[in-house]
């Protein structure tokens, strides 16, 4: 308790400095030097993933604190599909974990003749949001309980819709079988699946409208120490 008090004092003085103009009366100083706190260790979040494209495994990335992009797919076409199951680990304490999906661009890039025939406008090189790809990629984000890269019966869907509709921040539930949102336990492995597919056709439309379009997006996981 003494040590804690001392630290509070230090913080308190720092705060009081701001107010010295009004509290400049009596003063006394007691120095308690050399106090040391060793923190329980900063919470550490790591991820790794396994990725498939059209049914074939294309990437495995080992546990890392500095993930690059998970999805880097050029030349996707109608009927293509893919999936990455991301595994999440927290260390040095239980944590509540959020997942944020953010669309950064949805660009037309260029216009082909079939694309224009499909009703698209000519690409505007200054506009990063004039594409139609994000509106036409179906995405499912789910709690891949067994980490097998497949949506199994009973596995909880976190969010599904077109890519431009699944943007948002989601508090992940370490145990979807309970009614509470459970925190991640340290040193356990949890899995979130992110699957995508491009339909072969657009009802009442022409899928050629997505030709050469490119969309970019960020996926951010944040672990925050669980205060009990």
């Amino acid at each position, binding site marked *: 308790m003494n040590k804690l008090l001392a630290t*509070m*004092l230090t*913080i*308190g*003085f720092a*705060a009081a400095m701001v107010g010295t103009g009004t509290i400049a009366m*009596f003063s*006394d100083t*007691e120095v308690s030097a050399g106090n040391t706190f060793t*923190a*329980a260790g*900063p*919470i*550490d*979040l*790591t991820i790794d993933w396994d990725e498939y494209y059209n049914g074939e495994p294309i990437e495995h990335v080992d546990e890392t*604190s500095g*993930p*690059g*992009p*998970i*999805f*880097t*797919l*050029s*030349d*996707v*076409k*109608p*009927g293509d599909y893919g999936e990455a199951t991301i595994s999440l680990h927290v260390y*040095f*304490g239980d*944590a509540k974990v959020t997942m944020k999906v953010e669309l950064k661009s949805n660009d037309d*890039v260029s216009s*082909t*003749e*079939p*694309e224009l025939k499909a009703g698209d406008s000519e690409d505007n090189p200054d506009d990063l949001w004039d594409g139609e*790809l994000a509106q036409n*990629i179906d995405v499912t984000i789910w709690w891949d309980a067994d980490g097998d890269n497949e949506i199994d019966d009973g596995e909880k869907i976190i969010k599904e819709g077109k*890519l431009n509709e699944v943007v948002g921040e989601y508090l992940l539930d370490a145990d979807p079988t309970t009614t509470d949102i459970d925190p991640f336990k340290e040193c356990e492995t949890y899995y979130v699946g992110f699957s995508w597919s*491009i339909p072969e056709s657009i009802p009442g439309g022409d899928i*050629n409208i*997505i*030709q*050469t*379009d*490119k*969309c970019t*997006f*960020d*996926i*951010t*996981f*944040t*672990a*925050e*120490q*669980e*205060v009990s």
Partner: protein
Amino acid sequence: MESIKPLLMSLLTIGAVTIAGWTGTLASFSDTEISSGNYLEADRLDLKVGWDEYYNGNHIEHKDPTDDPGPIFYLDDIVPGDYGEATIILYVDSQTINPLVSMIIEVKSNDENVATDAEKDANDNDDNPEDQWDGELAQNINVVIWYDIYDEGDSDTDQDGITEYPGDNIQDPTEPVIYDGSLYNLVDPTTHTFSIDLDADPYTQVVDLFEPGKYYYIGFSWKLPSNVGDIVQTDTCTFDITFTATQT
């Protein structure tokens, strides 16, 4: 030291307030991993059509593969004995897609236009202005459609000393023929259409898909026999040729 207690207490309070002010950002330890730069980029599939055309042995038109081909054949006043040929160039613009390419020929009309005296002497009826199908030209134009793909690998020099190559507008005997007969008989009598999935390699048993970035050649030659007679005078036949590339 007694006197310092109230100060201590108040400092503690300030400290607590200050800490409370920080909770929004420093409630507890946290760690963030960002996977940025994810992207999905769609491929393209764009078929382009061009041709080289000859009429009575003279080169009359070259068209680079384009998205907007007009008519390939636009020939007025042909006479018995005339002949011509266009080798159609097909080009698929894509990064990765090998499409199925089909060709549909639709005869749109085979019209008498007007009946000349010479035509009537040749037992033709008077023109019916309401009828687009009362002509005799389509029945009398012979067309040959073939894969003008002579394989350079089998380098060969004909007796005439001309070395064959793909898309050379010459129908080599080894090149697979798609159709040889009258324009009239080419198409289905009710739909007036002829349809075929083109074969990127007609020397194999299956219909092979086209590869992007390569040129493929379809020869289309025609001839109005010199002995056709006067029955075709002033007749006009029109037809569309449609090429479609489809991702499979």
